[in-house]
């Protein structure tokens, strides 16, 4: 029986692979980083012991950090490859790119107005302002956490190129940016993408690459209208993935969400035991 074509293609397999890779490496870094940060508490030591103690936790953290930096470099190369250089720089603007534009400022104001009931929901195109923010936040985060992480990777080598006291600075910057990134993902990102009434309980768009056409008409009406106008809508509409695959996406997604919540809850609960100064 042919399944009904109810879903709109939103992410390519390459997009999904970037996101999957980011999830895996980000969670590895989160677990090992928090275990090390909380190493003076019984909970932190318990998490570290799952990896065989602090030496292993730190080593895994370092290697995962390097992999993340390699991934980031590859992503930059991918982005350079994807830019339409023939129409550059005009190609950076337009509804399909993630570059912030004036329309995003208007979209933000209108979205805020909608939250307070002043106006209708703005008619977003392919990417809304918060989706662009989510994308670029990873950039700023990776640059900050990556540079300081590389400095801390081998402190003795680093101090050949800069004063050793830069490591005092690097550790604190690394730590605050990491807490910001984890806090943002485990509360705001999860809520916006999965727990809003319209997405609850699970939004699999980044896993199966599609969103419901009906949902797209509400959240990204300009995009759907543009596809329709250009005659691209019909080929962009596909049937949902097979049920076993959907179950797999759901289970994977929620194990990551629960892992994030576990870290969040216990990190907050143990925060008072942490000696920072």
């Amino acid at each position, binding site marked *: 029986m042919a399944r009904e074509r109810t879903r709109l293609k939103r992410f390519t397999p390459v997009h999904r692979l970037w996101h999957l890779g980011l999830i895996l490496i980000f969670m590895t870094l989160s677990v090992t980083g928090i275990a090390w940060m909380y190493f003076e508490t019984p909970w932190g030591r318990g998490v570290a012991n799952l990896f065989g103690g602090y030496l292993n936790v730190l080593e895994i953290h370092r290697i995962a950090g390097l992999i993340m930096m390699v991934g980031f470099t590859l992503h930059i190369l991918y982005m350079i490859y994807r830019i339409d250089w023939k129409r550059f720089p005009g190609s950076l603007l337009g509804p399909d790119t993630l570059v912030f534009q004036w329309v995003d400022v208007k979209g933000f104001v209108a979205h805020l107005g909608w939250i307070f009931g002043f106006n209708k929901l703005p008619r977003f195109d392919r990417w809304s302002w918060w989706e662009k923010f989510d994308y670029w936040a990873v950039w700023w985060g990776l640059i900050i956490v990556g540079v300081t992480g590389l400095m801390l990777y081998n402190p003795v080598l680093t*101090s050949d190129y*800069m004063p050793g006291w830069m490591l005092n600075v690097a550790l604190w910057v690394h730590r605050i940016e990491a807490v910001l990134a984890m*806090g943002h993902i485990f509360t705001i990102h999860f809520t916006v993408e999965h727990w809003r*009434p*319209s997405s609850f309980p699970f939004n699999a768009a980044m896993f199966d690459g599609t969103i419901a056409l009906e949902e797209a008409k509400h959240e990204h009406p300009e995009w759907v209208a543009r596809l329709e106008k250009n005659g691209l809508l019909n080929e962009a509409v596909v049937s949902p993935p097979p049920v076993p695959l959907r179950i797999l996406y759901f289970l994977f997604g929620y194990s990551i969400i629960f892992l994030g919540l576990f870290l969040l809850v216990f990190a907050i609960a143990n925060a008072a035991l942490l000696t920072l100064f």
Partner: protein
Amino acid sequence: MSISRTIICLLGMLLVVLPSFGLATESPKDMAGTGYFRDQDTRPGVLEFYRQLPGGENRLWGMGPKRQVIRRSSFKKDAHNGVADFSPELRCQKCHIPQTKDLHGLRMGITCVQCHRSQPVAGIYHYYSALNPIRRHAYVCAKCHDGATPSFASYLVHEPNPIVSETRNTFPLFYYAVWVMLILAVGVFIFFLPYTGLWWIREFITRLKGRPNHG
């Protein structure tokens, strides 16, 4: 007198001259912490030399740690000499509480005497102290951090509290970097947490009213 002999002479002169260039451009980077002493580690006036090292006042526009007020006891052979009520039986934590709250002690379980050595504890600027900056990197840091250099040893083990205003004077870069990051992080949460909460409520109310999503 052949040309070849002239060349050999010139090469010989270069061999004599070149190493002195090397000495003239000695930088902290060249000072790998081998644990050996060089002349500059021990000769009089060495303090001037170390002021120019990373951590000295002139590096990075004066944003690094300023030299703290050095107490007179820091030069004594027994730093506790003359301290009222001092007894070698006391635990260090009784008086030096802030110094016990750093990564070395809390996470790695390093004890005070592993760096400061046992009784009598010498002042860190005493000429023979292991923690004297002229040999700290080799005698203390390198016990765990293989190849530690004087630059490496300028890391502040007992780091100040980065957010108090005092640190703006004692270690400006530390103070400003941490504050900038804190403002960034707190700013993101102050903005996005209420925003997301209100957004959730708005969608929920729309649902309750039975209208399609995003009414």
